[in-house]
């Protein structure tokens, strides 16, 4: 990863990803349709809970803010992971690995496109929540921004780990792109406080930076002041997780080259 970043190469990666997004209709399902379907499902569940009167009539906003924030992680992870998987699916990995492209340039390009897709996905959720449930995502205020940033970084951490697993174990590991994400979402209490989780799992949940971001968002929705303590815990978590995931990917790339795994794609 040493050496200066060449912006021309980063732009080339972004341009390639843009064409993939624009010319693959199925990719719009991930960015637009799937977030809207989720909004309908979870918003309706929230509405039903509200109608039962068992959740202090906060079910809908909890569910909708949960789905919005879950899609931050989802889009950040899936966009970046699929950007890498595209190169394995089209057997372009050999071409990239014998080009001057540095790993950090490739990742930077994927992160830019991931952010663009993330904004589009969030806009889809926000629009559906407003149209179908009269829920304004800005009601929690600007305080949501740090929580969104933490969740985006958690999504990227998962993507780095997925890339490492695919490099190590081959294409069969690509299922983890989605599988690992949903495990983290479940353990992070995206739609419920972790006190509602089985006691055995709660300590694991508390270790995840995403848990603190989801909890911070719920408190903001309840009209409480900015929960800086939770944000700080989440930020500290990603400050550890990002370098650890980058180190795992870096080590796996070395192993990939040492063991000649590139021949799987030649």
């Amino acid at each position, binding site marked *: 990863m040493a050496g200066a970043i060449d912006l021309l190469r980063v732009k080339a990666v972004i341009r*390639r990803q843009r064409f993939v997004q624009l010319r693959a209709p199925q990719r719009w399902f991930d960015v637009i349709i799937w977030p809207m379907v989720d909004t309908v499902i979870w918003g309706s569940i929230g509405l039903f809970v509200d109608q039962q009167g068992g959740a202090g009539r906060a079910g809908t906003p909890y569910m909708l803010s949960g789905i919005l924030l879950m899609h931050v992680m989802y889009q950040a992870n899936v966009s970046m992971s699929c950007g890498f998987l595209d190169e394995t699916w089209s057997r372009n990995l050999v071409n990239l690995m014998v080009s001057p*492209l540095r790993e950090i340039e490739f990742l930077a390009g994927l992160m830019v496109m991931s952010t663009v897709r993330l904004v589009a996905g969030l806009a889809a959720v926000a629009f559906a929540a407003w149209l179908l449930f009269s829920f304004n995502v800005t009601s929690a205020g600007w305080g949501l921004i740090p929580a969104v940033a933490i969740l985006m970084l958690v999504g990227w951490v998962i993507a780095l780990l997925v890339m490492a697993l695919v490099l190590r174990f081959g294409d069969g590991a690509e299922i983890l792109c989605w599988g690992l994400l949903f495990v983290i979402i479940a353990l992070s209490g995206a739609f419920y406080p972790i006190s509602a989780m089985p006691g055995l799992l709660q300590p694991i949940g508390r270790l995840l930076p995403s848990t603190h971001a989801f909890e911070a968002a719920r408190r903001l929705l309840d009209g409480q002041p900015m929960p800086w303590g939770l944000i700080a815990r989440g930020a500290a978590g990603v400050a550890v997780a990002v370098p650890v995931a980058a180190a795992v990917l870096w080590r796996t790339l070395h192993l990939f080259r040492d063991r*000649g795994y590139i021949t799987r794609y030649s």
Partner: protein
Amino acid sequence: MNVLDASELVKRYKRTTAVDGVSLTIAASERVALLGANGAGKTTTLLMLLGAITPDEGTVTVLGHRLPGGRSEAMERVGFAAGYLPLPTRLRVREVLAYFANMHGVADPDPAIDAGLERFRIPHLADAMATELSSGQRTLVGIIKATLHRPRLLVLDEPTASLDPDVAHRVRVGLEETCDAHSSALLVTSHNMTDVERICERVVFLSHGRVVADGPPASVARQFGRANLEEVFLHIASEERI
């Protein structure tokens, strides 16, 4: 200065030693063929020379940059194409070429793309989707992709595999023109000995991961007491089976 210096390369996989002490130097503008039967270690050697596989032993220096540390700088002046590799999906031919030209530092690739498409007589494919090309067209685009940045070293793995005679001829002529125009050195693997004799001034035969012959085609044929490279190839391949 040599464009490539590889010394005593060794690569072992779980059950086999794919490359066993290969040394190879290529001078500027020199055209070298790396030959051998399937499994002789050609592709593993190429991938080590390009930094995609780390050798267990030995060193690789490309254009003065020692791999793996100097891989990115070295590859800026190296072009690579393989007949068996597909092109990236969802891109038109011009976009594929621009993508790889940008990777190699060419900020305005259009003039080089137009010249490359003309040289290989496929300007009409500029706007075709890369995934819709025939294997021959894909090979030509792959070679253009590898030459847009005027590489000092052009590395081609099986460029004429499964091409019809017309396309194979275009590849040969285009390659010679490109190497002449850019003073590029060429390292090519091929199973087509006729192509090799026409294009390359030096051949290196591998067998069981080792260099068993290195020199001009005619002298290598003499060394083995054969009339041409085809017969040398068959002789070495038959010994490998034993």
